[in-house]
């Protein structure tokens, strides 16, 4: 190991690297390109990943939405094409039957109404909800609070509105909390204002009111428009979706094979597709990057091998002057490691630079495609160490070839 810290060793290497400029350049470009690709691809993949994460945002992604349509099969004396409604009893039935699977279950009723405040007004969605909705999709409250259990129990006439609605209905600087707005000519007290949500937004600009209040005001009795079911972690969301729908078919006297009676949208499955794509992307990145790296290192080995042939005479001279096979071997391996390392560092630097540019051009703003395209330091270190190890290993072959050079062969005068 001492020879590593010997300035002469490096002098020798510097000399031979300078002498073989073309070779040096080619090898460096080979490995540089490999590690550059690895850094940029990994960074970009991560950026895309972050971008998707942002789209999912604060939404509980393993959720299914279920609603009713019309049956497509006659069953138990009912005609085909029957329309029916989800009921509150369904909620209780599902809750007790799927205790382990279901994390949140939110029944929802929605309508559109004119909302008025003083002389300002607008048409918005009105939604009757339970506080649980805030857990399925986190509301970013700017002021105040979301619907709570008390509101539900007391069928309070309170509402939580969006920031946009506030801007449209209120004067600039006016305090919304405690103010009353008229929804369908009925006064509701504003208890909270929420900002735009991160990622998926189910409802847009909506006035949330307590589910029980909605029921009373709009006379919905036990009917429900649709429901959101969020599964516990580890639950097969696709399986749960079909199980729940089967239970519901049973409750509503719908043929088990009926395809149309219930509509559903499985967010979990859709997201799994994207996640699968992302995993694939990551895998591809690693594959391409590592393959390129290995190709680069092999190029170095190959070129060293060629130069060993070109340098036969030089090696012969060195041998005649007293170079031991070991010193020749060390020099060639060290050249290989040195070249790979320098190339690797340049690759990392250029790669980071490109990521920086990508970040600056595509990674800014709310709807950026890539967010924080970065590569972990540990990954860089692993890549780097791998490079050094590969550089050593690949240097072994030409180094061995060099020791096989016999001085007389190299020095024979023709």
């Amino acid at each position, binding site marked *: 190991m001492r020879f590593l810290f010997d*300035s*002469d060793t490096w*002098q*020798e290497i510097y*000399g*031979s690297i*300078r*002498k073989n400029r073309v070779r040096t350049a080619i090898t460096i470009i080979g490995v540089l390109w490999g590690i550059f690709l690895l850094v940029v691809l990994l960074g970009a993949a991560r950026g895309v990943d972050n971008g998707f994460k942002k789209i999912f945002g604060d939404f509980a992604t393993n959720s299914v939405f279920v609603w009713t349509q019309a049956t497509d099969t006659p069953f138990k004396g009912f005609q085909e094409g029957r329309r029916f409604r989800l009921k509150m009893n369904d909620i209780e039935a599902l809750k007790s039957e799927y205790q382990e699977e279901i994390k949140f279950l939110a029944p929802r009723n929605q309508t559109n109404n004119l909302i008025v405040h003083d002389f300002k007004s607008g048409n918005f969605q009105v939604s009757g909800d339970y506080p649980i909705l805030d857990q399925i999709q986190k509301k970013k409250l700017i002021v105040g609070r979301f619907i709570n259990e008390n509101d539900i129990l007391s069928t309070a006439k309170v509402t939580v509105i969006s920031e946009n609605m506030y801007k449209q209905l209120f004067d600039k600087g006016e305090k919304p909390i405690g103010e009353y707005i008229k929804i369908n000519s009925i006064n509701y007290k504003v208890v909270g204002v929420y900002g735009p949500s991160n990622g998926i937004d189910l409802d847009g600009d909506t006035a949330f009111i307590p589910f029980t209040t909605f029921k009373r005001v709009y006379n919905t009795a036990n009917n429900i428009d649709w429901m959101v079911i969020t599964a516990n972690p580890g639950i097969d969301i696709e399986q749960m979706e079909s199980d729940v729908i089967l239970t519901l078919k049973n409750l509503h006297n719908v043929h088990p094979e009926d395809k149309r009676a219930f509509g559903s949208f499985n967010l979990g499955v859709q997201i799994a597709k994207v996640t699968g794509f992302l995993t694939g992307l990551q895998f591809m990145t690693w594959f391409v990057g590592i393959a390129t790296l290995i190709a680069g290192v092999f190029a170095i080995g190959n070129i060293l091998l060629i130069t060993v042939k070109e340098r036969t*005479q*030089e090696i*012969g*001279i*060195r*041998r*005649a*002057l*007293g*170079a*031991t*096979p*070991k*010193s020749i071997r060390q020099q060639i391996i060290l050249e290989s490691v040195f070249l790979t390392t320098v190339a690797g560092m340049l690759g990392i630097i250029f790669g980071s630079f490109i990521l920086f540019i990508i970040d600056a051009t595509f990674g800014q703003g709310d709807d950026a495609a890539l967010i924080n395209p970065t590569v972990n330091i540990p990954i860089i270190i692993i890549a780097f160490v791998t490079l050094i190890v590969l550089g050593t290993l690949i240097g072994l072959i030409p180094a061995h070839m060099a*020791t096989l050079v*016999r*001085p*007389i062969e190299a*020095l*024979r*005068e023709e």
Partner: protein
Amino acid sequence: MIKIEKLHKSYPIGKDSLHVLKGIDLHIKEGEFVSIMGSSGSGKSTLLNIVGLLDIHDEGHYYLNGQLIKDMNEKKAALLRNKFLGFVFQSFNLISYKTALENVALPLYYKGMGRKERLQVALDYLEKVGLKDWANHLPNELSGGQKQRVAIARALVTKPKVVLADEPTGALDSTTTDSVMDLLKDINNEGMTVFVITHEEEVAEQTKRIVRLKDGVIISDEFTKASKAV
């Protein structure tokens, strides 16, 4: 210094083998200046390579500085070469991307000498061959004679016991030949053993002993006028 007894050497050529040295007996004492003459292909270089530990003999005995050369591995040979032997070749064999000074210093590097000291010693030897001013020139900036003088400086720099020169003047014109021979004579006068291969009579005559080789055997071994003059 060099003692060779019944030395044989063959090269395999395909299935056959070419018997190049057929029983050489040669004894060179310390401080001698010997030339080997013979036509091309007579085995001069082969003999020199064996003496220089660049090649191994098949049969017979070879003693270098009293040590029997047997079962040499590359490492041992490298060490002995570095310690006892200096080489000068017909085509100079300087490393093209190193300056004259670095070329001369290279054997000292393999000896393990520090850079500063090494370059100082190398410079002294370049001065000795009259090329101090050319120290920082690359080989391709030097004339043939200058290159050979650099090579001689390189052969001398480790203070070897024996300098082996394979046709050192073969690529030089007559004036530069003389300057190189003068240099070798100087070295010999300082007490170093010098062993030169040549096929030029004028060159051989400047040495002190001429060994003639033909078809792998020594046909004559005589001291020259030059030896008697001293």
